[in-house]
């Protein structure tokens, strides 16, 4: 398991924290984790919450949770404090770690300091809590810093299997040095950490943003070899004229978290070729720990628009009417089979006691077809959600929320870079208030939301909202 640091040279560097400059070797990492474990281990498995960023300390806390056999929910420290509170109420973690001081809002918890002066919180009353399933290792949110208390439950086998597959197809060796360009509380960001620790590589732990010069200075100073991004990171990189940026240590870059348009894929492919580096277009879901498929770089030029082939040890079938489609180019639901398929979802503490409900099969809800060489292409979605900035926004949820809040009919539709809303508000223009509500509830940037008040919302002959018509009108 990658958190054992088994066959790795204990003197080699594991983590470099870019804000403190501190380097932690694999041997030192082990002893730091075990010191934390000493504070959190008990006779039964416990639930930890870690409100984390991308500091070395946050990664150490995560690894300490894995090594001590406790389960850990990784949540972004930037999450809204009311949401933090409500998640704590729902899941009742025995232990909370937080990289930022938690405001004094937790009467059920007492604050403690470890020897390194790092604060953690212990729940005072534990005896009534539901026991956790022994396989449970990590909990992740699918909606980032926003709303839903629904979490993805991952097992030890899930995170290990996905790390192994990723390390294999990206050909990760111990001389790699990725920079943490995505939050570790996001499945894609976490997969970068896991797969590199597995291979004994070095990780540059940074909270800096790709839109700021400091990020690129850090990248160059430390001779980092790779970064990862969701589509909007790549849109920004093109705006920054990535082809003209001088990054001699860069070897590869990976993209997932939503569809990157073909124009952008071509630009980054050409740039990668001219710089002599690799660019990986990939696809996945948090429900599959992170990764499901990838496009081998040497095939990218003739497979632009494809999400590629399944990761090593995974399998993809296209299913239509409960039968596998074996004819190329015929569409069906993309169903993934592999050891990285989650145990199931959790919506409360009780769900954490359940074992594997998925049995290694994930119905992704994406419609796709395979070409004659087995490369998959996504054509649409069965469920109504869009991905904004790599995070999933369920259109039906937004719709329901608006209808309840404003007591009027709403229709939400859109693409992976914009959310469109129509409100049938009986002649009163509430578009600004509604927009504000969406921004606050889902923590979205206003530029991707458009709200219009209309006299009627188009319906189909069967009386359902006609989303296809709305989409076509765009």
């Amino acid at each position, binding site marked *: 398991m990658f958190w054992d640091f088994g066959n790795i040279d204990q003197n080699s560097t594991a983590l470099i924290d870019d804000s403190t400059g501190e380097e932690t070797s694999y041997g030192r990492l082990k002893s730091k984790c075990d010191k934390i474990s000493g504070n959190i281990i008990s006779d039964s498995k416990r639930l930890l919450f870690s409100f984390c960023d991308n500091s070395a300390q946050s990664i150490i806390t995560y690894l300490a949770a894995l090594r001590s056999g406790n389960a850990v929910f990784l949540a972004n420290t930037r999450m809204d404090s009311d949401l933090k509170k409500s998640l704590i109420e729902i899941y009742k973690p025995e232990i909370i770690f937080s990289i930022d001081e938690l405001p004094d809002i937790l009467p059920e918890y007492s604050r403690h300091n470890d020897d390194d002066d790092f604060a953690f919180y212990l729940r005072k009353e534990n005896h009534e809590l539901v026991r956790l399933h022994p396989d449970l290792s990590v909990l992740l949110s699918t909606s980032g810093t926003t709303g839903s208390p629904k979490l993805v439950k991952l097992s030890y086998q899930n995170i290990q299997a996905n790390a192994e597959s990723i390390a294999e197809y990206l050909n990760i060796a111990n001389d790699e040095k990725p920079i943490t360009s995505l939050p570790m509380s996001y499945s894609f960001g976490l997969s970068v950490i896991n797969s590199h620790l597995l291979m004994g590589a070095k990780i540059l732990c940074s909270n800096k*943003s*790709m*839109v*700021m*010069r400091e990020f*690129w200075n850090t990248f160059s100073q430390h001779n980092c070899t790779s970064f990862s991004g969701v589509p*909007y*990171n790549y*849109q*920004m990189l093109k*705006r*920054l*004229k990535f082809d*003209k*940026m001088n990054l001699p240590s860069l070897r590869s870059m990976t993209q997932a978290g939503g569809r990157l348009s073909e124009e952008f894929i071509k630009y980054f492919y050409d740039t990668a070729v001219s710089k002599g580096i690799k660019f990986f277009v990939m696809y996945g879901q948090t429900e599959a720990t992170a990764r499901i498929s990838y496009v081998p770089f040497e095939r990218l030029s003739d497979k632009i628009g494809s999400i590629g082939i399944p990761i090593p040890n995974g399998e993809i079938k296209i299913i239509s009417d409960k039968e596998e489609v074996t004819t190329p180019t015929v569409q069906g639901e993309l169903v993934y089979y592999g050891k990285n398929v989650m145990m199931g979802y959790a919506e409360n503490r009780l769900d954490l006691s359940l074992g594997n409900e998925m049995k290694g099969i994930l119905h992704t809800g994406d419609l796709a077809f395979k070409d004659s060489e087995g490369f998959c292409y996504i054509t649409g979605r069965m469920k109504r959600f869009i991905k904004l*900035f790599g995070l999933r926004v369920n259109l039906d949820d937004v719709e329901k929320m608006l209808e309840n809040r404003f007591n009027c009919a709403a229709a939400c539709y859109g693409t992976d870079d914009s959310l469109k809303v129509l409100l049938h508000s009986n002649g009163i223009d509430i578009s600004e208030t509604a927009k504000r509500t969406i*921004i606050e509830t889902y923590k979205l*940037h*206003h*530029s991707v939301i458009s709200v219009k008040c209309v006299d009627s919302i188009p319906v189909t002959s069967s009386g359902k909202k006609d989303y296809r018509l709305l989409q076509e009108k765009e």
Partner: protein
Amino acid sequence: MENLEKLKKAFSESLEIPPEDINDALSYGNKSWDSVAHLALVASVETEFDIMLASDDVIDMSSFLKAKEILGKYGISF
């Protein structure tokens, strides 16, 4: 419109901060100024002043004060 007001307008609209809360100390990471808002801010500054910012200036525009300095290079004075 005065250049200062124009710049405040660009900041105010893209970061969704009232113009009266915008001062030299406002920097990246404050309030709603994250990586997504940064792209919107750059576009908004470019539209407001009808210029095209160089890549170096995009990643250097880390505060309101810095934005004024950068715009100086484009002949816009404050």
